[in-house]
């Protein structure tokens, strides 16, 4: 029996949302492989709650719980993942294509002698499963075959629905893994704190570009009225007007909310690659020729400093 092994991502014992999307992809993959078992590995410290939660989604949860795995770097996590892949005879190892997953997955692949399909958008076929992935900033979609016996896959969280709970809870097992002697040491983490939802998970994203001239107040007001997240174009982050982690685009975050409002964003190819998957796109720009209008469902040629407050007032009245 084939096994699909999902590697869970957690911070301080809290599972990341993307992990449930990876489990959704893992479940679909297991089904396409003709009923493979779904296992999940979680490594870290104080994982009691996380393990219990994961057991609601996977047949077996392997838990590496120890101080050596708190703040573990990719070198260390790769050792645990490879040991678990071998112990479960996994045919596929699946991670979410978050910065954590992207950092770790290739090291697992190299150690297993496996090929890696990264940032996968969709699974194709049954029995033998191929993978669709974006290339050239989303201007082309390739179908790729991983030819090695073991395959490592990172999946784009916005493209896979989160897993539903399994009929019965799975087993939780302690898994002993050697942490090795990493050449890399965690020093510190400077968290960007926000009262708004996380950009990658938000139902509504209001994004501002160069047209804001750095003044994000109207963007933030609309986001807060609609319970949404704030996003930004690359130009805005490069100028230091907004923190880097708000950047939407090929080189930033890929988002696919129900509603995406692009205000004062011209719509460079690399920005479009990060938001084209949104359900409804609204563009507000003074320049009627801005490329953003080509992907917008609703375009409004207007000054954002006038249009956004009006939109905010109208949205508040609808609540």
């Amino acid at each position: 029996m084939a096994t699909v092994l999902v590697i869970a991502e957690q911070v301080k014992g809290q599972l990341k949302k993307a992990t449930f999307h990876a489990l959704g992809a893992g479940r679909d993959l297991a089904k396409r492989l003709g009923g493979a078992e779904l296992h999940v590995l979680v490594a870290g410290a104080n994982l009691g709650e996380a393990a219990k939660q994961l057991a609601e989604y996977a047949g077996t949860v392997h838990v590496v719980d120890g101080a050596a795995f708190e703040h573990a770097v990719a070198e260390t996590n790769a050792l645990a993942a490879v040991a678990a892949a071998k112990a479960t005879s996994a045919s596929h190892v699946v991670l979410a294509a978050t910065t954590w997953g992207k950092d770790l997955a290739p090291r697992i692949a190299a150690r297993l002698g496996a090929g890696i399909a990264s940032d996968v958008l969709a699974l194709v076929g049954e029995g033998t499963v191929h993978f669709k992935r974006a290339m050239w900033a989303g201007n082309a979609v390739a179908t790729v075959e991983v030819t090695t016996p073991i395959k490592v896959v990172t999946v784009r969280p916005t493209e896979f629905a989160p897993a539903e709970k399994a009929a019965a809870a799975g087993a939780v097992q302690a898994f002993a893994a050697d942490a090795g002697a990493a050449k890399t040491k965690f020093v510190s983490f400077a968290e960007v704190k926000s009262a708004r939802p996380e950009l990658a998970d938000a139902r509504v994203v209001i994004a501002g570009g160069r047209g804001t001239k750095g003044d994000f107040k109207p963007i933030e007001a609309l986001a807060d009225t609609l319970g949404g997240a704030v996003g930004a174009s690359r130009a805005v982050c490069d100028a230091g007007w907004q923190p880097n982690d708000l950047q939407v685009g090929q080189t930033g975050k890929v988002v696919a909310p129900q509603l995406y409002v692009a205000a004062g964003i011209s719509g460079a190819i690399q920005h479009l690659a990060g938001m084209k998957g949104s359900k409804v796109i609204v563009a507000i720009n003074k320049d009627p020729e801005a490329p953003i209008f080509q992907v917008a469902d609703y375009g409004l040629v207007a000054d954002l400093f006038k249009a956004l407050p009006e939109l905010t007032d109208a949205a508040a009245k609808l609540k």
Partner: protein
Amino acid sequence: MKILVTIKRVEDYESKIKVKPDGTWIVTDGVNYRANPFDEIAVEEALRLRDANMPSEVIAVSVGSELSVNEIRSALAMGADKGILVKQAGWVDSDAVARCLQKVIEREKPDLVLMGKQAVDVDDNVTGQLLAEYLGWGQATFASKHESLESAEEKAKKPGVKLAADKASVEVIREIDGGLETLSVKLPAIVTVDLRLNVPRYASLPNIMKAKKKPVEELDPKALGVDVTPKVKVLKVEPPPARAAGIKVPDVAALVQKLHSDAKVI
């Protein structure tokens, strides 16, 4: 300090990319080529580290067709000292590129390898991490910094990757989900760079002329003992799904009506 920096020849991101009608690849006729923009940031960082830690040397390495010598020359024109081209016609997967680089590194024995976090053609974002594991080295991916690209530190061309006083490790600030993480990595190490680490310099005309005289060595994957058979094969390339054409609305009231009644998103 010996620094190796990788540089890939890619389609210019400002070129219009179209899929071939037979679905085998993209149309390359009429497309401009240039160095991968992330790799240019890696070259810039290598030059800053070199200049802050003399005596040091920067070697620019590319794996690709004979035309990739142009991108090596552009790194030399920015200021790199010498080049190495692992000549490989046709597409190879990122794993084969990583194993070619592994052989070059085992021969050159650099203290630090700087690479772009991904190439903007296949957008894989795996080569640096694969290479680190093949070499058994530490890695710091997505190198960034706290200061903005408009800051005084950036204008003074200070390296964002900091060499420790004992020269045995580097401290790297990484741009990850939720914030900025700082790692300390023992040398030799792989560092992949993100957008906001620095603004790459332009090559001056005299430096472009000088670059023509700098040495570029050619190597061959076979002679290096690397089997380039892909672990990941591209079966088919398609255009992305098109979005239905949208409409222009005359004012905010019309927009609100559409979003509320038709799209039902507010």
